[in-house]
């Protein structure tokens, strides 16, 4: 197996090509604009910090551009791209983890007395809760949770994108959901406690 596909679960998972369907060539600009938001938010949710997002997103599309002629249409472009961005996100997370080693992660205090527009507070707190939650998950569970619950991909699509087998994907999605429900329950308990 060549080293290009060895680091690319999406490609690795497609297996040998059968009767090749006649594929229209994929236009790169169109691909960029159709999938930029997906790539950006997924990188963020997989733990790439804000200041690195531009570079990470660029890396994903450069890799996609290089490999576009190997895209066989066995999966959607979205899951194919996710395979690429997973590696990029892992790389950036590892770099970040090395930088933070010894520093210890600062504790986020969710409490705020901001009396801004109600929907803004709810949204900001929900976003923070989501990021905190994702941060605390194992890598594999995080990837499956992001794809299934936030991007609404089916389990077989998640399997194609992550390179994990279907059984593993199911158990990771289940685990992610359980942990998310627990987090929601903890939030509810805290709020009930705070109320006078």
């Amino acid at each position, binding site marked *: 197996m060549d080293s290009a596909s060895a680091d690319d679960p999406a490609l690795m998972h497609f297996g040998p090509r059968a009767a090749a369907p006649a594929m229209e060539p994929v236009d*790169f600009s169109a*691909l960029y604009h159709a999938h930029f*938001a997906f790539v950006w938010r997924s990188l963020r949710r997989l733990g790439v910090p804000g*200041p690195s997002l*531009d570079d990470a997103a660029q890396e994903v599309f450069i890799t996609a551009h290089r490999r576009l002629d190997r895209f066989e249409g066995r999966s959607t472009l979205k899951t194919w791209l996710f395979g690429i961005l997973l590696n990029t996100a892992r790389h950036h997370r590892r770099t970040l983890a090395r930088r933070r080693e010894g520093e210890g992660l600062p504790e986020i205090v969710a409490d705020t007395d901001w009396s801004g527009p109600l929907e803004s507070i709810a949204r900001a707190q929900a*976003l923070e809760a989501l990021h905190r939650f994702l941060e605390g998950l194992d890598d594999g569970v995080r990837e499956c949770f992001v794809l299934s619950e936030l991007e609404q991909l089916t389990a077989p699509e998640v399997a194609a994108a992550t390179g994990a087998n279907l059984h593993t994907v199911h158990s990771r999605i289940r685990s992610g959901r359980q942990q998310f429900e627990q987090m929601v329950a903890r939030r509810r308990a805290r709020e009930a406690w705070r109320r006078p």
Partner: protein
Amino acid sequence: MSDLSPEARALLDAACSGDDPSAADRERVARSLAASLGVAALAPSTAQAATAAGGVSAAVTTLKAAAVVLALAAFAAGALSPRRAPRTAAPASAPVGVRPSSSSPQVAVSAPALPRPAPVGVAAPVVVVAPLRPARPTPAPVDSLEAELGMLGEAHRATLGGDPARALTLLAAHGERYPRGALRQERSVERVLALCSLGRRDEARAVADAFLRAHPSSPLAPRVEASCGRSPGPVER
């Protein structure tokens, strides 16, 4: 396929759009990407671009956004008013008018394709990406949300307390400190509200228009729509 409880789903939905990029993010990365790939520019986004979003799931996820985009377009057509040119004057920065394609997983795009790189050998070459901001100090990514929220809250209280000018100063400082913070959308909304309080409707409208272009499906969009930056009010005809 979600088995999440309604409460958990509601929390996810509330957080959902918070990670989306702005139109400026999209254009900035497009420019760097074009430079890295050695092409003049990436073709601007068009409705056609969205047809590259292959697959049923992509179509399903864009369906909701498309409905909002179309609804807003209809609204804008009805309530069109003279607009100030955006400061960045980027003609290609219109957000994608997302139209879900049919559920075909294959792609059919007729826009001219970028030159492909020469096919590479079996070994994957290392991607070398020119860093966009070489020596930029990186803010702490984890604890910044609380700080962002605190600063924004101060600005909001200033507007409420009758000092919208101070709110604008705080918001400008917020923008410099967190140019790509998680609460950019809230910052824009607060700016609109502060400008409205000062009676600076033209500026409020420019910020509101830019916001709605960049985040048409934001949960905050109705608030911007209801502000003086969009609604006709007593200040002018």
